[in-house]
């Protein structure tokens, strides 16, 4: 099992004729993702890697029945692409594009929700459910099917974490990059809830970074709602305050959003935080062991009670 994407995922690539769009359309197709169409205004009727291209999402959806789209169009057109996808009936929109103005995101994010769809991103690497589907730019070579869920605000840092897990034999159910911007469609809590509900997922790796209070809120949520073990890593301990560290969302301002504060909140919620991404597998193994022991104890107790 998995969250958000699986074997039934049928993808339209918005901006399929661009450099990134065409490259990753092929990568997704090669991985086994069911890429059913692409859209680029003015390029309707052509093909990219055998994938039919349409002028509009409306045209594409009239021919193919997709449930997911992934956006590679430049920032000035990315928000329009989100509206277009949702209005055409797409239920999961993954926006890879980096550099979308926050004002536009504040308007489109509630629109997506009001229409019963889910947006992942923007400024995100997308998601992958190993051996099932890959939507976005996460490299298919570093993942492995298994029972760990991965959530991250970052891109390449996520690859690092996934790769560390894979090397240590900890495969994944789904890896989700939620994006590094201030306003994003799907946050940690949305993913945590989905992983908690996913039977195949046994443990969760959550990778945060400086800026905002998403990790603090996630920590509180985990403590209250999650039965599955979570381990974490927070990037940006060495970042100076007041400076944007690449991601629009990665900025410590006025003493809030620091790595220290986040680690403290996570530890207080009983969530182990790794000192390096490469330490995540060991932490996860220990957490799984503890969870198993706890479950066994509980089962034993229940059994003895039953007697």
């Amino acid at each position: 099992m998995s969250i958000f994407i699986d074997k039934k995922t049928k993808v339209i690539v918005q901006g399929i004729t661009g450099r990134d769009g065409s490259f990753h359309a092929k990568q997704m197709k090669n991985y086994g993702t069911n890429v059913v169409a692409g859209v680029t205004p003015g390029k309707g009727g052509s093909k990219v890697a055998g994938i039919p291209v349409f002028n509009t999402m409306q045209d594409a959806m009239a021919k193919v029945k997709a449930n997911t789209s992934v956006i590679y169009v430049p920032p000035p057109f990315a928000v329009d692409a989100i509206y277009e996808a949702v209005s055409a009936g797409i239920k999961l929109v993954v926006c890879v594009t980096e550099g979308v103005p926050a004002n536009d995101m504040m308007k489109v994010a509630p629109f997506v929700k009001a229409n019963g769809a889910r947006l992942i991103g923007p400024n995100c690497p997308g998601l992958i459910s190993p051996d099932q589907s890959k939507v976005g730019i996460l490299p298919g070579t570093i993942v492995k099917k298994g029972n760990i869920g991965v959530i991250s605000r970052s891109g390449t840092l996520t690859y690092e974490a996934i790769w560390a897990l894979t090397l240590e034999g900890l495969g994944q159910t789904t890896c989700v990059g939620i994006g590094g911007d201030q306003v994003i469609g799907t946050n940690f809590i949305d993913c945590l809830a989905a992983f908690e509900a996913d039977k195949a997922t046994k443990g969760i790796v959550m990778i945060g970074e400086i800026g905002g209070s998403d990790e603090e809120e996630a920590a509180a949520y985990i403590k209250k709602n999650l039965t599955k073990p979570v381990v974490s890593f927070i990037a940006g301990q060495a970042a100076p305050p007041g400076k944007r560290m690449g991601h629009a969302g990665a900025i410590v301002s006025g003493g809030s959003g620091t790595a220290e504060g986040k680690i403290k909140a996570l530890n207080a919620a009983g969530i182990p935080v790794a000192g390096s991404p490469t330490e995540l597998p060991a932490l996860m193994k220990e957490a799984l062991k503890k969870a198993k022991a706890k479950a066994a104890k509980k089962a034993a107790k229940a059994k003895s009670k039953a007697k």
Partner: protein
Amino acid sequence: MKVHEYQARQMFADHGVPVPNGEIATTSSEAYEIAERFNKPVMVKAQVLVGGRGKAGGVKYAENAEAAQVLATKIIDMDIKGETVHKVLISEAVDILSESYVGIILDRATQKPVIMVSSAGGVDIEEVADKTPEKIFKEYVDPVVGLQAYQARNLAYKLFKDIGQVRQGADILMKLYQTFWDVDASLVEINPLVTVPGGKVLAIDAKVNIDDNALYRQKEIEAMRDLAAEEPAEIKAREADLSFVKLDGSIGCIVNGAGLAMTTMDLVKRYGGEPANFLDIGGSSNPQKVVAAMDIILSDPNVRSILINIFGGITRCDDVASGIVEAFKQLKPSIPVVVRLTGTNEKEGKKILASVKLPSADTLDNVVKKAIELAG
């Protein structure tokens, strides 16, 4: 992106927010002329992008044009927290009866703009927020419908008793919100918003930060960028489309991806080194970006080794490797460089890199340790 007070107050004025008369001077004689023309006491205000200019002596009251000239002479070329003052704002001084704080930022938790006001203005608002949060009042704005008049009134009633001032205050908040939205701000702030004899409400300071992601459609504002207030290396990095932040350490870092770049810095610290910078070459990187990155880092005399950490995804290792080879050709670095390449087109990348015979490492932790070791 930050803009200067005089630029921010122009944005306010363009939206109808009342501000005192003011003009910009780059010399003390200009300061004299402006103050003389105003024929009133003025404030001489250093235009710098760093905070705390008041405490640093960058904001002074001048009784007349002569005094303004003297003060301008002192303030121009002053160094405030590392930033040199090149311009002063000469602004009509007003009698202040009360001071409030007004600010709008994007609230990440609710993903909405939030307007904050406090009658405890004129001071460090973060201190107010920290020590007496009950003195700060907030309204969250539904971004699709915008700020509603009732919300502005709700807040204005927290600042003023007089209904005339409530109306002025509410009107200023409406206009300030419009400014926030129109200029794609990530922050707008009036601190303080004052009342003067006669009952008028005025913004006597102005702060605006712009969402970098929106600069492509805010060309006029982008043109306001004050290159003189920035690190030359940061200017160069922006021109090369690199995310770069200068730090004080000795380990230069070139990484793809912001999260991984931060993590690399964190690990440099963890393993006993000090990072010289944050540098993210971004996603679909071309070889020229690597050359520019290397050039920027090599221009920092503190740097004693460079680590290149690439996890290929949208970035392809062969592109980066070509860039490294090209950089070695062009820049001939005299300090050690250690490279870790993994992910998309790793094999092709390593093949290309073989020609320069660099020390390499296969893991994140190892490349960091190696760079520290090489820095000596």
